[in-house]
Structures are given as C-alpha cells and as structure tokens.
C-alpha cells in the first residue's frame, strides 16, 4: 500500500518526459474526475506518469499493487483487533475517497474479479463507495480520481478486464518512448552520460524489434535504467546489460547466450 504523497511543493517533481498528448488527456480527465485506464507494457513508465500527474495536479496519491489474493477488504478496510476491542481501519481506497486523492490500482487485473467490482460505484456518476461493514456509503471528495493500469497481452488468458469495468474508463495508451526520449530518460534516471544511455537504448530497440521473438517480454525502459545504474556504478556496459537485461529476460541458457550475442553486437566496443 502506498503512502499518500504530501500535497504541495515540498516534494521534487517526479521526472516524466511526455511522449504524446497523454498529459493533456489525463489532465482533462482529472478536471472532470473521470477514471483513467493506463495501458502499456511493463516498465514503460505508467507508475511514474501517475506520480508526475499527481504532483502536477497537486493531489495526493495512493498506490495499491494488485495481486491475485487482493480482496475487497484489502481495498475498503477491515476491522482489526486491538486489545479487547475491534477497530475499523480504512483501506487505501477508502482513504483516497475520503481525502480526495488519486487512487492508483497497479495491475488491477491481477486481482480477483469480485474485487474489481467494488470500484464500479466509484467510476460512474455516483462517485460513491459503499462500505458494507460500516453500513455507510461514502461520497468521494472532489479531488478523488481512480487510475488503474493494465498490461494487455501480459496477463494470462484468464486475466482480462470485464467489459462492464472497462467501459467506465478513459484509456491512455503508453508505449516505450521513441529512442531520443528514451535516451534522455535513461541518462537522467540512471545518471549516466548520453552515449552510454544511447547504447543501452540501442540494445532495447534491437530486442524489441526482433521478429517472432522467443522472449516473453522485451527489455523495458526500467530494465535499461537498471542496466544504466549498474554501469554508473563502474561495471562494464556489457556486464551491466548481461545482469540487468539478458539474464532477466530469459532463464533458458541457450536463449540467454543468443541474446548475449545480439547485445554484444549492438553495444559499442
């Protein structure tokens, strides 16, 4: 469960480099309090985007990571035992509803589907959260906005958003940024020079552009930043990519060797 970010200017703005018009779309949705569905591959910057937008809009941010045993009580809250009595403790969703913060449900598809339906009354005109166990219905504060992320094609066949859930959202599709932008991002985040960042981005591009790739996943921007950070700590670029990209993407030794060959050809001598 995330911690609400303090509202105001004390926190430095999270680094986010817009690629398209996603900032405008998000801001428009935020003004109307519309829920947003972020789509995009893993490690392309969905979470960072939400953080940047929360900062820009001056709202708190509550992040919940979805997992397959996430229950509605994990979102709404539950009675806990304290001493001899039971005490109600708000869940992250309830907290965001009360505080008027942005609630970001990361990879919400992973959660059980009966969990996702608790967000339904929050995502339409009602903007309410019924808390059955307390017997109350909470009206969302004006700043409240629900943001969920979704990674199409990444989940198993089972995990798909229900249409009745999907159609409540405004979708923003995020992809990996174009090479120039990604180079900036990697250089900034990993704290390496632009040449090193450009070499890492070239590796990422080569892996992403493989036709009929045997890999389940491609090298994400986050993986490239990790590799850059390792290189920034004095590791050779090849070793850094090997540990942060190649060995992460495949457990199959043959595939890892084939991938190293590709990386080796792409990275400058």
């Amino acid at each position, binding site marked *: 469960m995330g911690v609400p970010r303090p509202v105001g200017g004390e926190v430095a703005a999270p680094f986010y480099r817009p690629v398209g018009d996603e900032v405008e779309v998000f801001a428009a949705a935020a003004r109307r309090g519309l829920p947003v569905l972020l789509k995009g591959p893993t490690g392309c910057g969905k979470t960072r985007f939400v953080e940047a937008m929360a900062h820009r809009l001056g709202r708190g941010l509550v992040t919940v990571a979805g997992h397959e045993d996430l229950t*509605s009580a994990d979102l709404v809250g539950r009675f806990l035992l304290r001493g001899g009595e039971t005490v109600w403790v708000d869940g992250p969703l309830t907290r965001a509803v009360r505080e008027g913060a942005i609630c970001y449900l990361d990879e919400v598809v992973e959660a059980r*589907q009966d969990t996702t*339906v608790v967000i339904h009354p929050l995502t339409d005109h009602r903007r309410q959260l019924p808390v059955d166990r307390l017997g109350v219905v909470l009206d969302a504060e004006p700043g409240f906005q629900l943001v969920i992320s979704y990674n199409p094609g990444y989940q198993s066949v089972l995990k798909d958003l229900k249409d009745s859930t999907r159609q409540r959202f405004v979708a923003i599709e995020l992809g990996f940024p174009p090479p120039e932008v990604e180079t900036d991002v990697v250089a900034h985040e990993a704290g390496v020079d632009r040449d090193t960042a450009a070499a890492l981005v070239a590796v990422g591009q080569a892996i992403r552009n493989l*036709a*009929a790739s045997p890999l389940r996943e491609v090298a994400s921007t986050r993986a490239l930043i990790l590799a850059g950070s390792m290189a920034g700590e004095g590791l050779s670029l090849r070793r850094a990519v090997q540990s942060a990209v190649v060995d992460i993407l495949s457990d199959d030794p043959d595939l890892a060797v*084939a991938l190293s060959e*590709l990386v080796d050809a*792409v990275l400058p001598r």
Partner: protein
Amino acid sequence: MTAAPGGETSGSGRFRLLATALAGRPLGVEDAPAADRPYTDGVNIFVGPGIGADDQRRQVVVQAALLGAGSLEPSVAKALRGRPRTARRYLAVEGRRVLADVASRLGGLSLTVGGPVISATVEESLALALGRGRLPDPPPWFGEIRPGRLLGPAGGPPASAPTPSDLRAAARLTPEAAADEDDEPGEESKLLKLFQNPLAKPNALSDFVARLLGLSRSPAPGSGSSGGDLATAAARRVRAVGAHARPLPVPLRFTGDDPPDRGGIGGALYPEWDVHKTRYRPQWCRVVEIPMGPALDVSTGTAERDQVLHRRLARLGLGPKVLRRRPDGDDLDVDALIDLAVDLRAGHSPPGHVYLERRNLARNLGVLVLLDASGSATDLDPAGRSVHEHQRRAALTLATTLEELGDRVAVYGFRSRGRSNVEMLAVKPFGHRFGAGGRAHLHRLTPAGYTRLGAAVRHAGELLKTQAGTPNRLLVVLSDGFPFDDGYESRYAEADARKALEEVRGDGVACLCLSIGASTPTESLDRVFGSASHASAAVLSDLSPRMDELFLAALKELAAPNPATRRVGVPRSGRLRS
C-alpha cells in the same frame, strides 16, 4: 559478457537472435554439412561447423545482413540463378556494402571487410556484378549465394495451399518400394498391385485397366469381421508433416455388406452434423462402450510423475471456500472472537486467529480424458515415439495427477470403424480407482481404426453429465486433430467435431483439447476444435506450467455471470468465479 563471445563454439544456434535482428525476420542458424560454404535459404543460415565462434559470427552477420538489406530478394536471386560467377561477383560487392552499413549501425561488431565499398544500392551492385569490370574476390567467410535455395520451397510460404489433386499427384509419384515388404509372395502379381494402389483411385486409366484385367481383391483371410479393406492414404512415412498435410480423401470399403454388428452390447445413437446440408443427421452414429477386461499383466504402465503439473493443478480453485480462524481475512469470525475473549479473560493469551477468509479452493471437478486410440495417431516423432504413445502417456499422467488431487476422473479411449461402430474403450470409468489394472489397460491400448471425433465427444459429454456427479465438468480431448472415418473427412468431419464440442459446452461441460506430440498445424486445430480451448505441444510437460490456466480458461467460459451473486462478500459455493 559471461557468455564469452569469441571462445569455443557452443552451437551455431546462439547466433539466431543476432541473425533475426539483422535480417528483420525470424531466422535460424544451423551447421552446414562439412565442406560446404556458408549460405542461406531465407529461413536458415547454414554456417561452417566446428570453427570458432568469431568465424561463425561473421559468417552469420554477412548472410543475415544480406537478407536484411533486401540483397537476396527473389528478383535478385532470379537474376543470379545459374550464374555462379555473377553470384560470386555480386556477393563480393553487395556483401561489402551491407557489412559497411551494419558495422556503422552496430558498434559491437568488429568486422574487417577487406576491400572498398563500391556500390550504394542493390541495383548498383547487381549491375556491377553483371558487368565485366574487375572486382575483388569475396573473402571465404562471405560464403556463397545459392539462388536456387533462396527461390526454393523453403524460401517462403507457398503461394497457396495444395489442393487434394496436388496431393494425389504427389502421392502417385511416390516410389512403390515400400509396397514390396507388404506383399505376400505369390498372392498377386506386382503389376496388379500397381493398379490396386488406392492412392491412384481417381485415375481413370488405372480404373479402366483394373476393370479390363478383372481385378478384384479377394477378402483377406479372417476378414469379414471388423476392418475390411481399410486402405489408407499414407504412402510414405515421414518424420514431420508439412504445413498443409492432411489425410487424402480415400473411400473406405468394407468387404461385407455392412460393418460387423456388435450385437448384445447395445450402444447409444447420436446425431451427426452435416455441414453441407446444414442439418443434423438424426441417430446417425452408434457409440458402443467396451469395458476392458481384467488386466493380464499389471506390471506395465507406471505413471510418470509430473511435479509441475501436480502443483499447477493443485492451485486450481473453482469456488470460494470459507476458511475459519485465520490470522488474516475479510471478516471477523465471531465464534473465534468469542473464544478469544473467553480465553483472554481466563488468563490465556492465544494467537489472534479470529478472521474469516474466503479463498478459491473448492474444486468439485469431474474430468473425462478422451483419448484418441485411432490408427492415425501412429506417426512417429524423431525420438521414435508415436503420437499415440505421447497421448497415452499424457492421459496417464493427467488422470493420475487429477485423481491424486481428489477429482473424479474417467479415462476413455475411442476409435471407430464407420458410423455404426464407434468404440468407447472404458479404460477407467467414473467411480473406479485408477489402479494398476487401469494403467496396464491404458498402457496396452493399441491404436487401430479411425477417428469419428464428433460421436465420441457427444458420448463423452453424456457420460460426464450422467456419471461425473460434480457441478464442474471438464472434457479433455487428447487427439491429433485429424477427424477421419468412412464418410467422415476434411470439412465435414471438422465441422461435425466442432459442432459436437459446441453442443457439449452448451450443456455445461467445459472442453479442453490437447494435441500432444502431433504436428498438426494450428489452423487445422482451430478448425476442428473451434472456440473450445485448445493447446498443442510436443510433450505434456511443455504444457504443464500453464495447465491450470488452460483448465480454468476452459471452465471459466461456462461460468455465466449471475448478478444476484455479484455482490461482494456473498459466498457462492459450487460456482465458478465470474
């Protein structure tokens, strides 16, 4: 790099991703026969075996770069065909051009091209190669261009799928050498045998000659029972079938007036879907259940343990189950809370396990494994195991695993000899233990006959509905996806099988079709299994890691959303999660 490029060769396959990246299309890298120079056929790059990794790498790079730069397009290959000298000259010019281009893009490749780049485009290179000017020779590691291989069948997908007539023509060209072994000496002459080739059936000439010579095949000794003249289409045994392989439409002939009757045992009649007339043929197929006798040798048939499968299937939860006295959960367990309060007052300090937790653990699952026991499953894979053997092992492992997990399991084999004789071999009916006897039966199941998939599926669905006794029912079909029987082929058979699966699913039985060890193309499986969940793999263990997903996906589509139970917190025992 830990992989230490430049060290000893560790198989040329390590360059396949590099080749794929350079060529911009999927490429394999294989060892060329010794003494061959490296070349590509557009699908694979063949490099010299047993040389250092650095040498192999540059061989791969030049060939892949040629493919990636469009230097080996069919138009170019056609211009080079039959002109080895021109091809060499072209390779010298174009190879250096594409390598210079690649070296500028990929900093990690230290390639010494060994000569100037004198052209800028493919066309320019081709013009230079076709001209008479002196050109430097390509270095040996450039290998060679083989236009014939590039333009050959491996160079790309064929323009269109072969028609049955193409297949017949090809089958007629097949040498008859293998037929000699089957010939019983002195029974009939080689000449007559030639004319009797069932594959040549559509040939009017052979029909005519056969009639002229009064050729009529006498019934084989002992026929007159089941079987009859079961001429099949397989003329040549191959290790793997091509993308468009399918059984040839060959009429089956029975020597008697009617296929033999299995009087006394009875049987169930099922309709069959006629796709041509878009209607059912009522009471068309008779399905006979054949109980297996006592096992003679129970020492055979040990099940392979598949831990991954066991773990995965154990995770399969189909309904919520309320767990009491948990350390964490959605609700308070009032009983536990009262006990806790009492204990605290009495001076104990028990752990605070006072919550109710709902987890998807309830199963209530009945599974029928329907195993293809027909003769079409006898093709061998490279390891020498037949498709049938793969499927049999898969059935054994699946059934054993599911039974260990407490599900109700049945295993049936099926095969057919015409529409009135579809046999369902009851290897393990519901309610029986899957003991050594059942395993021995399964082990001794020999493939025979044909595949009338639709009728078998309908009967299996009926068995699940009447005998499984569980709210969740799953039919697992293990088949190579080639439905084929007398009057039951290609589109008709595929449509009927698909229809049967739809019917069964419509009756609330989930269907999962697994094709293990068969090389049936995916499109064909799509046609047969339709929208039912299906998956194929070389061995069962390839599917094991996602078997829970496959099971759940098959079962999930039956879980109709029920608004009344949608409210959070309402236990829905025995229902799938929606």
